[in-house]
């Protein structure tokens, strides 16, 4: 990958979608390889080592979620799911399996490019030092300190852990399951209520207007994500 030019593998069983993606992405100098089924995807991944996979879920030979699971066993390659399935269960399944983002068809090209940028940025920003920042919100992990507009905010350990989790991949949606897994390390059943209460408390502490949160965004029925671009006009997620 040079100068933002990416090797992208596009998997979709619909030729029209593949052609459209190839034409569009080529305009931005990305190199597109096409696959029309799960097995071919995995085979091409090993051969071509692409920088990014854009994956459809409804494949003729195996389910896209299965493909993600298989890839995740040996690769942390960024994966964006592009699917007509718009039910929250499907999104959660794909995200829990390890997809980095999820976009439902039909979609705008602008939206797709933004997601690609977000995913790529995250995959390179993970190595940063222990200080995270988005908008006016800053988090110093090693000193366990959170500031907004420069003034420090007192967070409970749980609130801190939740924020830290979201900060690990700003812009990425973390499902309830994923956050609970990271923060509580268990699934006893009561955590989703705790998560809901903690998010609400966290918002009251960091959001200028908790009724219209700008930092912690909710994807209804799926999870939460940290807004990596708070100054932007809020775009439709998913």
């Amino acid at each position, binding site marked *: 990958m040079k100068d933002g030019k990416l090797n992208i593998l596009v998997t979709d069983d619909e030729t029209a979608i593949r052609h459209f993606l190839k034409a569009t992405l080529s305009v931005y100098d990305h190199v597109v390889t096409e696959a029309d089924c799960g097995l071919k995807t995995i085979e091409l991944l090993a051969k071509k080592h692409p920088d990014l996979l854009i994956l459809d879920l409804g494949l003729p030979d195996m389910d896209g979620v299965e493909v993600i699971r298989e890839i995740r066993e040996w690769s942390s390659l960024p994966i964006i799911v592009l699917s007509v399935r718009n039910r929250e*269960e499907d999104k959660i399944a794909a995200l829990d399996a390890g997809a980095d983002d999820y976009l439902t068809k039909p979609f705008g090209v602008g939206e797709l490019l933004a997601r690609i940028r977000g995913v790529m940025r995250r995959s390179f920003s993970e190595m940063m030092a222990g200080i995270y920042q988005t908008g006016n919100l800053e988090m110093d992990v090693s000193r366990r300190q959170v500031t907004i507009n420069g003034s420090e905010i007192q967070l409970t350990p749980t609130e801190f852990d939740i924020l830290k989790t979201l900060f690990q991949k700003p812009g990425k949606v973390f499902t309830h399951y994923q956050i609970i897994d990271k923060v509580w390390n268990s699934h006893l059943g009561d955590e989703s*209520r705790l998560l*809901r209460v903690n998010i*609400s408390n966290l918002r009251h502490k960091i959001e200028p207007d908790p009724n*219209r949160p700008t930092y912690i965004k*909710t994807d*209804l029925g799926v999870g939460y994500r940290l807004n990596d671009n708070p100054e932007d006009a809020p775009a*439709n997620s998913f």
Partner: protein
Amino acid sequence: MNDDLKRLRLSDQKQSHLQPNSIADSWATGERILVSLSSHPLGERLVRAGRKLADELSAEWFVLFVETPGHLNMPSQNRIRINQNLALAEKLGAQVYKVSGSSVADEVLQFYQRHNITNIILGRTRRPRWQEIFSLSVADEIIRKSSKVGVFVVNEDQETLEDIRTKKWLPHQPLMRYLKSLVLVGVATWISHLVGDFIDPTNLVMLYLIAVVIAAIFLGKGPSILASITSVVVFDFFIINPRFSLAVADMQYLITFAGLLIVGLIISSSATLLRGQVEALQAREMQTQLVNQFSQELTGAITLDQVLEITLKNFAAIFGGEVVVFLPEGTRLHKNAATPHYVLSESEIAAAEWAFKNAQAAGKGTETFPSVQSLFVTLVTSQGVTGILGIQSQVFQEFFTRDQRTFLSSLTNLAALAIERAKFAQDAMQAEALRTAERLQSALLNSISHQLRTPLAAITGVLTSLSESEKASSKNGKLTLAVREELIDSATQQANTLNRLVENLLSMTRLEAGIIHVNSQAGDVQDLIGAVINQMGEFLASRKVVLEILPDLPAVRLDAVLTGQVLVNLLENACKFSEPGSPIYIAASQQGDEILILVADEGIGLAPADLPHVFDKFYRSKLTNQTAGTGLGLSICKGFIEAQGGRIWAENGPVRGSVFSFALPVYDDLKGEAEQ
């Protein structure tokens, strides 16, 4: 019942001294009151007393007038009075019957047996004492012969109703009748003895013939034959010389004997024949009346259930037993209705099925399954067997007379026709409903195809004009950049519209197929509203969205995705039906066990006529016909909210605009955990 009766006040202002006389028969269903009416002026009081008693016992009541041969010569004022009283009874809600017969008492008694009467109201007129020695009044006769029934008597000279405790019941024992016939002969002999000195013995024979005729008419064949024979013997013994001996001095008296015997026997048989014919006639008249009543009641029945209920009621009343109706469903019989105490044995069900398959009666009194307790008859119309009717009754013996058969079949024919009619009506209604559904469906298809094609047409138009512009060689055919951008924007908008429509259709289909998956969990209203506003982003960009979310609202039991979709639809509607730039309000508050969320706008509001229909599928207000929409959004909202156990409603704002509100239950921690 005792207390009820004691509380009764049958005559105005005066407490009647009623004594409950007996306990209603166990098979009597509710109270049934019979008023026996005569041409006497007392009639009106009788009718009114009947009405009162019926009211207080909430009983059915009947008024019976028995026309006897004596009524033929009735003075016209009596006839007018009778008609007036019968009309009055009808007005007061009685079922009025007019029957003819030779004896008022017998007719009343027959009627009371057939109609399960529990109380009889009678009038008793003042009569000279001496008359009572010789004959019973109608009232007394009824009182004597009716068992197990309450009898109330309205006396002519008393203002109050008098309850008569039923006296000892005297059955029509045959022995009594024979004794009576002997008494008649005795009376004839006694009179003969008194007048024997002045009248020729051959003429005295007439007295004996009178005795025989009376016996034949009132006592039956046996007693009258006995009367004939004893007449001859007694006549010989007491009247003919030598008296007190059976010897005959004058041989010509043998002819008198023979004449007396033969005439007596002929009278016996012909009078009893007449009596039999009268009885048969009366029975037939009664049957006709029952059939008429049944058919009248059926005329009023509209639904199949009503027809079945009336059929059960009438058959049970007429035959005094349990009744069941089977109707076919496909090729099998199905028990559709039965009186409460009907217990069907397996062999009875088999009999019913046999009757249905073979279109013939089966069960008791027939050749098939004769050992079962019930008789199963077919309900036949021109269309074939519409059902099977079963009766469990003591009335049926091992065989049927022709009369019984005819009567039964006239009743079953009526029932069959009524059932068939009700079924046709039901089918017609279903067909009509189906046609309506089909009409709706085709209207719907038209609407959907129109709405799908419109954005497609726009998109195709934009794409082809862009394509033409690309191909054009001269500058003339090229679109300017500004036009191209405009075209592309509109095509994108149309594509979004199309996508929303497809989404709505899918939601609707899922709702209607009942496969909406509700994942109710504790949800945060503030989070929900914030997420929806964020999600709608640019759509709401030109609007001032005013939020009034009360702090510290408890968690709500909801499916975040479905409720979010509801909010999106409501907000889209609010934008659609109000001026661009006007504010939109979202408020959340708690009311009891519910959280109330409302979306209000300052737009055109809702026409009062539209209010009840806004949530109907494909309902489009006349006011908003110009605005693009599918008529699906709100019905989906309703479906989604109701699927979560909430409710949704629409009203007009206090000043202007419309307010759409929905309420969802507060999340109950204990309940929520118990369900997990």
